[in-house]
């Protein structure tokens, strides 16, 4: 049985159709890639799967249960964790604290103990978080303020925080946006090693290189629809994918050669609060 099934889902915002017909299934244990041009609706699909939006039509089944109308925090408890396209670390808080916030669910049932840093539970969780940071080569930065770190490192911290939820399915929304080739290759290796521990991964990215390198299966979206699904090599050979995504133009090739293209929605969000976007950079 598939771990996640997205069954002909659509989502409208007012009169705007963000997703018209998305359909794919993810078997447990694989790395699944979701790619497509800007504005194809990839991030909307991620938001639908993680409960931030409810679908207008269609069904999403995760691990045998429906996702529709379920709050994100409940889905997290059911084993769904994600990273955000525009990177949302808790700022002014250490790397370790960020990961510990991700351990929230592990404290379940022990919510009322007030023994703070001395409690056994806290010690266990701290050890878990530090171990996780070690696996991601971040242990030397455990006490650093998350906002003081270079961009690439912050991306890794965000992945560490999502892994702290101990998800069955990890959704990575453009984890390599704005990264250099070396950094995105590192992320590729990280995804592989995470997958090796049994976590299923849904990777949403523009980076054909990365997707080819790490994904077992790929779905391509265009204009809110999933147009092709299959093994990467076969998908790239598909004429529809060439037309919709790879293209033949100079920039199209550039786009795949480097990873400068970010999704239009991240940009729209940045533009909506452009004051913030202008300030936050440095």
């Amino acid at each position: 049985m598939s771990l996640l099934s997205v069954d002909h889902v659509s989502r409208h915002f007012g009169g705007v159709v963000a997703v018209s017909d998305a359909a794919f299934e993810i078997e447990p244990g694989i790395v699944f890639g979701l790619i497509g041009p800007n504005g194809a609706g990839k991030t909307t699909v991620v938001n639908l799967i993680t409960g931030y939006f409810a679908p207008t039509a269609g069904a999403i089944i995760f691990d045998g249960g429906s996702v529709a109308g379920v709050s994100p925090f409940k889905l997290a408890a059911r084993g769904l964790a994600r990273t955000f396209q525009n990177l949302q670390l808790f700022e002014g808080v250490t790397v370790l604290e960020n990961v510990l916030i991700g351990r929230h669910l592990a404290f379940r049932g022990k919510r009322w103990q007030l023994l703070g840093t001395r409690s056994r539970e806290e010690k266990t969780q701290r050890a878990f978080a530090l171990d996780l940071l070690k696996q991601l080569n971040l242990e030397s930065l455990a006490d650093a303020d998350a906002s003081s770190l270079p961009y690439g490192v912050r991306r890794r911290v965000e992945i560490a925080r999502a892994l702290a939820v101990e998800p069955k399915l990890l959704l990575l929304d453009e984890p390599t946006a704005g990264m250099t080739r070396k950094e995105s290759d590192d992320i590729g290796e990280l995804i592989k090693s995470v997958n090796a521990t049994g976590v299923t991964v849904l990777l949403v990215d523009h980076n054909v290189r990365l997707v080819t390198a790490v994904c077992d299966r790929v779905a391509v979206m265009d204009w809110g629809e999933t147009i092709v699904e299959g093994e990467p090599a076969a998908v790239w050979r598909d004429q529809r994918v060439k037309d919709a995504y790879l293209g033949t133009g100079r920039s199209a090739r550039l786009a795949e050669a480097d990873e400068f293209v970010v999704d239009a929605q991240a940009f729209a969000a940045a533009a909506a609060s452009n004051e913030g976007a202008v300030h936050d950079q440095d």
Partner: protein
Amino acid sequence: MQQFINGLSLGSSYALLGIGVTLVWGVLGILTFAHAQTMTIGAYAALITLDRGYPVIVGVIAGLVVAGLFSGLMDLALFTPLRRKRAPEFAFVIVTIGVSQISDAFEASRTRSQTLPFPRKGFPVEPLTLLGRNVPRLSLVMLVTSVIVMAMLGYWLHRTKSGTAVRAVAYSRDTGELLGINSKWIFASCFFISGTLAALAGIFLAASSGQLSHSSNDAILLLAFAVIVLGGMGSIRGAIVGGLLLGLVSVYATVYVSSVFREAVAMLTILVVLVVRPSGLFGEKATTRV
């Protein structure tokens, strides 16, 4: 019917009050607790001028200029550096509380904490009989003034170059600066205008009650905020409608509930409006401008 008229006339003072606040809070996004003191300063300046025997028009202009300068200088001296530091919203609130403390102490010491009689001579204070009902003429003047000011502000903000520049700078100070707009003066002049509108409300209220004390406008501050919430953030039309509605609610509440907590009844209305329609009557999106 008489209650209705009373409500509208109370509401017209709220509307005038709301317009002054909406320019800085609704448009520029700065919640100022010094508005009540600005009103008092303006009214006090008018009172001194009138006491010296100058005509009403001179007194009003003196009040407007003094309160406008007070407000504009507050922006230049305190908010400009805060903006440069990209201080969070509430830092501005605290600073305005500081300013209100200082100016309240100043006004109190000038008036020796006494309630002074405000000369009503020359103000249109005699009631007018309309359709067999008593209509306070001053309220009518206030209402007409509010509507005129509303129309002027609306035209300025949406149709003129400098008004567009205000909206540009209010949306993003940095972007406005990059386009060559001197944001410092734009903010200061908005505060100047807001100060003059506060003074106008302060003078009208002092003239209609015939007295002025350093604390006479303190209770009204929350009402001004309430007017904005009711009408919707950044909506000038909303400030007037919100003000009138709040006036009506207050008057009817006084009649049917209790006269002691007239303002509090108004606050209760606010709670209901906030819960039912958080963006106010004419507001755009409640979440965008907080």
